[in-house]
């Protein structure tokens, strides 16, 4: 422990005492440190959310299992979903954005550094509040601890009558607080990108990562705010006896569904757009070609942002909307496959004819392309409302969205971890271990989530505690659980690799990938002020111009 602190101390670049070191991290307003805090926070919750998933999978491994009680099982799927979306996926993507955006646009910090710190700590305390429910959720009633209403917490399950104790209060307050933090981060992203770009970096010359985070931030503002409003209403219902979602007094449970999914579906794109951003930075560098169709990429991103705001009710086909409603949401949901399809073609176009280097970041991005395509295809299936009526609430749906979240988002995230690791720590990760991580994770992922579709098609509903033998589900559930353990081992290798490399990895240098965006022009890790002199750029690939003065990009753009 002591040697670890000393080593981290060196990494932080000072010879201070532990107290000073800790004080420095807690009070920091530096975007790089806050980015790393976001990422560490998310990795911590990733492990917790992963343990919850594993508990569920052990419970479902064989029929008639009693590994945990039904009550605990309900808490596990609620906490797994809430944790993974709000306290893993969003903060880790914000962490990378916070770290990378100022560096990529040639700025010294975010537009509002203190708001940045406030946003992080709001998110962090939101996460702690959610997990405090394990201790404090009982209240005076002795009724349940952690939230057990499912991650979308449909009314009237959340009303006082059905959720006695404080578990649902912890859920709603945690999401309210972390939501305010997310909105703060989004305000900061947009303001930074609009007002802090270095001279010469017009919007058309901005790295795609900045573009996609700009659109994401706009979606956070428009989508997380409704969730915040809905949580305020739920608080009023629970604390002040209001009747927003109280069907006894004429309130509507369906209104909560609409409010939740107005947030919930754009949220999927809030998570996937930063993943697209990673792929759009990594694939060109490892194919040794500039991104294919930059303006189309930007246009497709903006299109996704717009269309994703009008697809939410495809989560609600089964509640009995009018046929016009069903048709509208089927069409909009299918429309969104056009811009995403454009993106897939552009990434393939970037790789086409390139000198591809299959390092770990690129491996994860290639796997992402395949898996995201399959996830998109099951998405089109589920977007057709008649098909959806058959399979809604089944394991097919669970398999579909995990294919997106794990197969696409988590894969590009792993790629991003390996790609920017040398920049953040100054040291190179171990490529052999990274390949072990990749292959084990690919095998585990496909074992789990390919075969999860099948019990869904055979009629296995999601969220069931256990099932009877003889329905043809046992074999597939066993395979799914085995895959979970393979993924777990892969993640342990990943975490071990990052920890080991931080102290023992070879020194990376400023630009280990021969890349083209501004973050690679400064030292690894970057100094507090990022750039000694603010850079001036002339093209989308400023470092290419610097390395190839005889043939700079700005001649052709």
């Amino acid at each position, binding site marked *: 422990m002591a040697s670890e602190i000393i080593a981290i101390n060196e990494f932080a670049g000072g010879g201070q005492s532990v107290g000073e070191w800790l004080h420095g991290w807690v009070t920091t307003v530096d975007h790089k440190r806050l980015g790393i805090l976001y990422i560490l926070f998310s990795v911590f919750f990733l492990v917790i959310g992963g343990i919850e998933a594993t508990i569920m999978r052990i419970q479902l491994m064989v029929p008639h299992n009693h590994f945990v009680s039904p009550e605990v099982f309900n808490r596990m799927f609620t906490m797994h979903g809430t944790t993974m979306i709000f306290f893993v996926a969003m903060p880790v993507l914000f962490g990378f954005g916070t770290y990378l955006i100022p560096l990529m646009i*040639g700025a010294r910090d975010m*537009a*509002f550094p203190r708001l940045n710190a406030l946003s992080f700590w709001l998110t962090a305390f939101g996460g702690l509040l959610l997990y405090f429910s394990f201790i404090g959720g009982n209240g005076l009633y002795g009724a349940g601890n952690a939230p057990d209403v499912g991650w979308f917490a449909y009314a009237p399950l959340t009303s006082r009558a059905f959720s006695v104790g404080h578990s649902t209060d912890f859920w709603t307050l945690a999401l309210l607080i972390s939501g305010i933090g997310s*909105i703060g981060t*989004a*305000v*900061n992203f*947009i*303001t930074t990108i*609009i*007002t*802090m*770009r270095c*001279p*010469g970096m017009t919007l058309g010359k901005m790295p795609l990562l900045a573009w996609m985070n700009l659109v994401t931030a706009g979606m956070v*503002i*428009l*989508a*997380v*705010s*409704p969730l*915040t*409003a*809905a949580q*305020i*209403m739920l608080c*009023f219902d629970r604390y*002040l*006896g*209001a*009747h*927003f979602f109280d069907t006894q*007094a*004429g*309130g*509507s449970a369906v*209104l909560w569904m609409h*409010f939740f999914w*107005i947030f919930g579906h754009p949220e999927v794109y809030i998570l996937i757009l930063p993943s697209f951003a990673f792929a759009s930075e990594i694939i060109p560098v490892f194919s040794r070609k500039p991104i294919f169709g930059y303006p189309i990429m930007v246009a497709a991103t903006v299109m996704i942002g717009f269309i994703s705001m009008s697809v939410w009710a495809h989560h609600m086909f089964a509640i009995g909307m009018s046929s016009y409603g069903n048709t509208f949401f089927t069409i909009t949901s299918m429309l969104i496959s056009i811009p995403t399809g454009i993106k897939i073609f552009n990434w393939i176009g970037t790789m086409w004819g390139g000198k591809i280097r299959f390092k770990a970041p690129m491996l994860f991005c290639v796997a992402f392309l395949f898996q995201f395509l399959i996830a998109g295809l099951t998405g089109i299936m589920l977007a057709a409302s008649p098909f959806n009526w058959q399979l809604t609430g089944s394991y097919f749906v669970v398999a579909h969205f995990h294919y997106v979240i794990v197969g696409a988002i988590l894969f590009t995230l792993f790629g991003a971890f390996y790609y920017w690791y040398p920049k953040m720590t100054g040291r190179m990760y171990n490529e052999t271990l990274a390949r072990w991580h990749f292959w084990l994770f690919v095998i585990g992922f496909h074992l789990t989530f390919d075969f999860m579709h099948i019990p869904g098609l055979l009629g296995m509903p999601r969220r069931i505690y256990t099932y009877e033998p003889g329905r043809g589900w046992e074999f597939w559930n066993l395979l799914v659980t085995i895959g979970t353990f393979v993924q777990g081992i892969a993640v342990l290798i990943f975490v071990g690799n990052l920890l080991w490399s931080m102290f023992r990895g070879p020194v990376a240098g*400023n630009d280990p990938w021969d890349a083209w965006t*501004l973050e690679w*022009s*400064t030292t690894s890790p970057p100094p507090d002020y990022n*750039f*000694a*002199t603010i*850079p*001036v*750029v*002339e093209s989308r690939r*400023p*470092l290419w*111009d*610097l390395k190839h*003065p005889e043939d*700079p990009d*700005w*001649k052709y753009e």
Partner: protein
Amino acid sequence: MNSVAAAHPPLKPEWTLPSRGRVGMFCLIAAESAVFTIFVIAYIFYIGKSVSGPQPNDVLELPVFISICLLSSSITIHLAVRALGKAQMGSFALWWVVTLALGSIFLVGTGREWHHLIYEKGLTINTNLFGTTYYSLVGLHAFHVTVGLLAILAVAIFTLMKKVKPEHHEKVEVFSMYWHFVDAVWVIVFTVVYIVGR
């Protein structure tokens, strides 16, 4: 190492970008608009759905006077900001205090209306759906007015202490954007609650 400017193409015009404060405030206003939109949708969705009384047309009266006060405060804050831009400190202080007074009248008026509804008409947030949506929407707006008034009060105190200078013009102007937004929201709340909903 950091000067990425290798061989420059012909010189470009001067590099200027929008002000941080304005862009940040626009984003905040967008987020707040989304929050208000959800509350307004809930209000409209529940019009006439209360299963018991009192109903809006039994108890609500048009708050004309306080609405005029709040909307005029948008004009006075604009005059104050313009005076600060021209370094006319006396004029700034006068209009700023008038804004504070007008905003306070609005808040007191809302308070009196609520007192009347609660103690004389027996309408609270848990009486029926009308009470739920009415107090939530009007209360959310009143909360924003309160936050704005606290900020106006802080600037007023700094003004009396002679700490506000013409170089603070942009910051004060960015705040005034928030106040204009709060006034604009009142137009919508007024229309929905007192005209459409009655």
